[in-house]
């Protein structure tokens, strides 16, 4: 299955990945092989078969809208692995441009 470099770049954007040129070439080659293989599913007659699957067999599992205090994290715990913290908050890139 042919997948061109523009498609790959689009996928990178969708997947929040940014590959080096070398890596992109290698991955493109792998992807072509793998996608050709999985495309073999097209041969399967699936007429009338549902396209959803309930893995657990369960339905509408709900819990009380109350915090389970013993399992809650403190602010410190929640921030403990952050690369950048500011005044007890995660620091992130600007998302609103003015």
């Amino acid at each position: 299955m042919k997948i061109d470099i523009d498609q790959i770049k689009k996928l990178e954007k969708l997947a929040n990945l940014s590959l080096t040129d070398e890596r992109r070439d290698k991955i493109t080659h792998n992807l072509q092989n793998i996608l050709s293989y999985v495309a073999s599913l097209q041969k399967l007659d699936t007429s009338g078969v549902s396209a959803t699957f309930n893995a657990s067999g369960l339905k509408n599992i709900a819990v009380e809208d109350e915090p389970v205090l013993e399992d809650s994290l403190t602010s410190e715990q929640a921030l403990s692995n952050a690369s950048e913290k500011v005044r007890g908050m995660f620091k992130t890139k600007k998302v609103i441009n003015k």
Partner: protein
Amino acid sequence: MVDTIKELLDGYNTKKFTSKEVIGYFHEKSKQLQQKLNHYITIQNIDREIPQQAIPIAYKDIYSTKGVLTTCASKVLSNYIPPFSATVVKKLEQANFYSLGKLNCDAFAHGATGENSDYGATHNPYDLSLVPGGSSSGSAVAVASGSVLVAMATDTGGSIRNPASFTNTVGLKPTYGRVSRYGINAMTSSTDSIGHITKTVWDSAYVLSKTAGKDYHDATSSTIPVLDYTLKINDLDLSKIKIGLPKEYFNENIDSDISKKVKEAIEILKKKGAEIIEVSLPNTDYGVACYYVITPSELSSNLARLTGLRYGLGRENFGDEAVRRIMIGTFSLSSGYYDAFYAKAMQARNLIAQDFDEVFKKVDVLIAPVTSLMPPKIGEQVNDPLKNYLMDALTIPVNMAGIPALSVPAGFVKNIPVGLQIIGPKFSEELLFQVGKKIEDETEYYKIRPAIK
């Protein structure tokens, strides 16, 4: 020192040793073997309080362990220390299981050989040049080598059964929802099954009795009652059992030595009265293609959280296999391709699950090989991702259907272990253990220790 949990518990009851002596022994052994096997990512120290009757355990490094480095065998999480533990970790701690450390695996559980770890491949203790299987490579090796008595693992497409079969250990993939997934890195949320590897069937049953059960934190966890799975483990009357052999799992693609060992084990059950029936799972061949659309799709979503913002390092640190899978998943879910790939794979999944429903109307369990080939040499397959994927061909359909399977030792081919899997309908773990025990009682393969050279 003991080889099994059962021996250990007996030894504690007869005061053969103290829990401090036991933990000290397995801790030393783990450290000694680490260089040759590379089965651990983190060996914990043992200055934490050791409970009475402590059982040495280790966890695949995708299990969150509070305060202990949890890398998922990836560079992305090389500095991640979870502020909480997985539900299963807490349950086992309460049941006196004492953690010796975090085990190596394929990064994010993506793999079938252990070679996709960012921390180096793990070696098969029966032959150090061979892969131990994956993705739960370190888990299988830790048990096979006697570094621990049980290792927690996960099976999403065969990742417990595959390495168990390559290392002469018992690997349980429970029914989807039998054991809570909370706190364990999600790969394919609709197939991830939380299981474990032990030396013997009794040990496996004992551990499931401790890990299984409904969890508030995992909405997919089942309320079906948890049994003491060891209680009736010896009580099976095989003359009342019908065993199905799915013909698609015994065709010419399967290594004939593997088929032979599996059939020998089936003969044991036949001699003890079981009826053996040939059955068919007609959609078996579509399993790998189906899985390698659904799995990448779900994991591309699950791994989206790793941005290096709240924890871990940036996404440029993903290994090649993770990148491949994220891209395939993103592709399959993207507009223009969703119907032909993802929706089609979901339909295929329904057909695969229906195959099992049909077959379990005629038989009680199925028995089949776990892999179609013997463990390859380390480095042999690592550049061929598709060949790696095909290694899961005989294990994937079970995950698609969400049913349980138990991998037990089936003997050796030129001193390298071979396993077989016993597959049953949902929540039939008690029966799987009973059938496995019959094979184990007769063969006692678990007594054959690895040379580790």
